[in-house]
């Protein structure tokens, strides 16, 4: 069997329509490489590649269920029933029991509040020049495991995690509304990291990052 333009176009079309491509054996490495290249090109299309909120909800539910099962095994009595979890704050979320449990658990048991507590064997990495930071406007950066924002007020530079405390999506900064906005479920945070109170459930604030200025460079403690 040889690869041919029709077969390959079927594959391309599946990618462009976000369908799972049909699994067929390929004749040679060129055919495989052509498909891997097609996948890479597809992913470069603007707007592609963010996980859907439905998927994140399903995953969150699965992870929480797994975590609960683990904690339930050694100490079964310590495990809150799903029913009680469900009743304590997930009303109005129609994404299924597992997702509701996940969301509810998360708001009670936030990720470690200080992101830096988790960075133990890190180091200071230079991420931006102070001169590149406009007064008061958050600038996104990433370094190692850290995705964050830098905000300069005068000579003072602060760092905030850019990971939404709801379900882990990466926040965007809206200049227009001067706030951080989650592309997944619409949670918003002020530039001080506090969640805005319009959101329908309490969220932890955005963790602060360890930031310092050395010789005109902003450094972040990261891994």
């Amino acid at each position, binding site marked *: 069997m040889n690869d041919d333009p029709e077969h390959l176009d079927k594959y391309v079309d599946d990618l462009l329509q976000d369908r799972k491509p049909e*699994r067929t054996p390929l004749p040679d490495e060129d055919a495989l490489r052509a498909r891997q*290249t*097609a996948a*890479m090109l597809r992913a470069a299309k603007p707007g*592609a590649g963010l*996980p859907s909120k439905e998927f994140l909800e399903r995953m969150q539910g699965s992870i929480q269920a797994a*975590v609960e099962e683990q904690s339930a095994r050694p100490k079964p009595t310590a495990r809150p029933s799903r029913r009680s979890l469900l009743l304590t704050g997930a009303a109005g979320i129609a994404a299924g029991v597992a997702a509701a449990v996940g969301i509810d658990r*998360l708001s009670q048991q936030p990720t470690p509040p200080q992101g830096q507590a988790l960075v133990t064997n890190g180091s200071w990495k230079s991420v931006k020049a102070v001169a590149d930071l406009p007064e008061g406007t958050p600038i996104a950066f*990433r370094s190692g495991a850290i*995705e964050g924002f830098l905000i300069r007020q005068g000579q003072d530079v602060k760092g905030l995690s850019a990971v939404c405390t709801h379900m882990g999506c990466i926040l965007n900064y809206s200049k227009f509304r001067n706030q951080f906005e989650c592309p997944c479920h619409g949670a918003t945070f002020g530039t001080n990291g506090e969640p805005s109170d319009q959101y329908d459930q309490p969220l932890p604030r955005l963790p602060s990052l360890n930031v310092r200025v050395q010789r005109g460079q902003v450094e972040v403690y990261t891994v």
Partner: protein
Amino acid sequence: MREDETTTAAPVFASPGKVVSLRHADAPADQEHLTWAYQTHVTAIYQYIYCRVGNRPDAEDLTAQVFTKAINGMRSDVSVPELRSWLYRVAQTTLADHWRQYYAEDTAELEDDVSRPPAPRENPEAVHRVDALLATLPESYRRVLELRFLKGYSVRETAQELNLSETNVKVLQFRALNRAGRERGRT
């Protein structure tokens, strides 16, 4: 049969028997660690995988597989960099298995360099890589790939734009992807 297995997009649900076997899993700190590991990496791992499979259903399946494996194998005492590079290694082997289903021979040489940790925010990087790749191609090849992939034109729209028949567009696309695939293999 493969359809059934994969269209649910969440093998974590499908195999509850597997997820309870996490080691060192009785302290609350471990649960937080796992939840934290998941929360801070799910989007990045998804994007990493998406950039390599180029479609949502596969990216969702494979991401769920990675975290299922993570739950099964995670130690509670790993540091963040260890955890992070480990999650990406799991993602890489999961991807290699995925491609092996299309192409039976060993795909080891097709895998990425494991020693180079990928960037968490993958999409800008993907765009950069794609620009560099397209720049190596002849104009007609570059044009057909840009129209199809970056602009999302159908074969018919591409044919109109390039003043070609639809068959010719498919042939051009075929040659362009094969050429680009060989270029990628060279680097």
